[in-house]
């Protein structure tokens, strides 16, 4: 995302079905050439955003602006936007070639140019030899690629992808993620990708929009979203996170406060203007937690607990620790093959530590 020219803007878009508010005065700017992901749990309104941009649904309120022009009044068939559907929606009675040529044919592109562009699109998704097949003679991954080719061949300003990889198995999905990134760079088309899979969102996007209950929760780069979530919903939805509830004891300096949680005094780093007695959540990613023997941690800030379950994950060892207060904590550590003490016994007493500054401190939220 080199240039930051806004391509599409949603301004105060609302959508209600019966009495169910799906989108609540949503504002969103999509920049030219970026890979933007709409991430959220099912029912958060992300697909509705896509359908409104594509023109399949009409917003109740607000505007959809493309290059500063209001396209709310344009029908779906006249918008310079194409969609890759979750179900692919390939035309079963047409060959791969005819599927891809469909959009160009509808736009009355000259025959010779159609042929050229379809072949180009086919080679882009590496399906040259499948041109004459029918969709049902293709594997899921191949159908997916045809669906992408059918959309990008029209050179849309904006390509919308609706959970497009969710029907594929894990390995294929990872391949397609890389393929999609490659295509996006190669074509320099703006991609708007909808998913509920946070891993997918983190690995592909330039920016992520986290949606919940029809409202934007946070917009940012994958790194911002993961490392500095701005509320509990974002923190919990993206990756796993340990949550400790406590309150501020005193302010140390303009970047640090002392927090009492789990019966210990913690020094935490925050930009938020907390004052004494503010209730806070301290959040720690499992991979930021360090486990040591209690005797080694003496004299430093730490909390103690017992190993309650160990889960071998291949790359990492996930340990579930129960603190004396009853709080459960997950610690995810990389294997150190040279460390003979690495494995834990169940019930073993351990000390939890982390590097100050890696935690996230959020103002207290009413229980969600």
């Amino acid at each position, binding site marked *: 995302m080199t240039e930051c020219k806004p391509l599409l803007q949603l301004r105060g878009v609302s959508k209600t079905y019966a009495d169910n508010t799906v989108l609540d005065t949503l504002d969103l700017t999509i920049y030219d050439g970026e890979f933007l992901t709409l991430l959220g749990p099912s029912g958060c309104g992300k697909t509705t955003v896509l359908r409104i941009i594509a023109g399949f649904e009409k917003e109740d309120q607000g505007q959809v602006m493309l290059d500063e022009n209001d396209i709310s009044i344009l*029908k*779906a*068939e*006249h918008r310079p936007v*194409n969609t890759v*559907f979750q*179900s692919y*929606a390939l035309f079963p*009675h047409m060959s791969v070639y005819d599927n891809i040529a469909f959009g160009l044919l*509808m736009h009355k592109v000259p025959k010779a140019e159609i042929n050229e562009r379809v072949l180009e699109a086919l080679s882009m998704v590496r399906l040259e030899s499948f041109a004459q097949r029918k969709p049902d003679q293709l594997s899921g991954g191949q159908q997916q690629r045809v669906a992408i080719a059918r959309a990008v061949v029209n050179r849309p300003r904006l390509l919308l992808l609706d959970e497009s990889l969710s029907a594929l198995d894990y390995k294929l999905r990872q391949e397609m993620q890389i393929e999609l990134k490659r295509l996006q760079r190669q074509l320099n088309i703006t991609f708007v990708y909808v998913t509920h899979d946070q891993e997918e969102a983190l690995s592909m996007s330039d920016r992520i929009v986290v949606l919940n209950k029809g409202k934007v929760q946070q917009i940012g780069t994958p790194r911002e979203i993961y490392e500095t979530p701005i509320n509990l919903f974002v923190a919990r939805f993206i990756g796993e996170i340990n949550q400790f509830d406590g309150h501020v004891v005193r302010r140390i300096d303009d970047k640090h406060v002392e927090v009492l949680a789990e019966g210990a005094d913690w020094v935490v780093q925050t930009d938020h203007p907390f004052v004494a007695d503010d209730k806070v959540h301290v959040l720690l990613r499992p991979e930021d937690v360090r486990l040591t023997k209690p005797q080694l941690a003496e004299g430093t800030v730490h909390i103690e607990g017992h190993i309650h379950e160990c889960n071998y994950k291949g790359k990492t060892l996930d340990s579930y620790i129960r603190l004396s207060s009853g709080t459960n904590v997950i610690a995810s550590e990389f294997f150190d093959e040279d460390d003979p003490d690495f494995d834990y016994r169940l019930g073993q007493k351990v000390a939890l530590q982390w590097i100050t500054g890696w935690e996230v401190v959020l103002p207290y939220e009413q229980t969600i």
Partner: protein
Amino acid sequence: MNKQFNQFRFWAIGLATSWLALFVLVPSLMVLVVSFLTRDVDFLIKFEFSLAGWESVFDPNFIALLWDSLSMSMITAVICLMVAYPFVMCLMGLPQRWRGIVLFLLIVPFWTNSLVRIYAIQFLLGKKGLINEALQFIGLIDKPLDMLYSQFAVIFGLSYILLPFMILPIYSSMERLDFRLLDAAKDLGATTKQRLLRITLPLTLPGIIAGFLMVVLPAMGMFFVSDLLGGSKHALLGNVIKNQFIQTRDWPFGAALSVLMILLLSFMLWLYYRATKMSNREGGINDSNF
């Protein structure tokens, strides 16, 4: 699989098979045999090989009649299609719950015997019928139109009787149509007309063909419609067959005609099979689903 189930299966399939063999296969074979026998005035048929029945089939006069019957059936089917297709498209716009009710209402009149309903059409179309009276009343015409006992009346009657047989197969194929495909077509720039011609029509073609079969074939056989509304001037294949057996008493010819009709039916069923195989590969009727 337990023994009881096996026994049940044996009896269930056995009974149906013997029923069909006894009351469909054997009579059909008898008809086939009769078509190759000799006509006899006193005993209807003589057990002597003859091709006379089949020769009459290829008589130019008869071919003209057959053509007449076929074209009337085809026109009926086309009319039914033109009414049924838009009807089904409107029906699809209704909520699921309403569709069932509308289809039910469509079927209700067909619980009445079709003969009775044809008599009703006679009253409608007659010189002093409802339509003529109404038209005269609003002053569109001075003297009653001659509608009854015409080709128009026959086609009208056939279309009325057979319309549901066009609607139901089209509805069932329309219901199988994945409406996301229409969204996809719209997304790719297809206008309403282009979506209809390039997506909806090709994908519901099996339903259209099935509807055609279910209209054309009975339309050729419904002799009472032609008798009551066409005044026997516009004979259907069914009338000809009926006449051979009951009036002319030329059984071999009638049998040959019946065989011809069965062949025609088989040919159309084969066409239908091919069409569904070709255009409905994804889901619906598919070899692997059976």
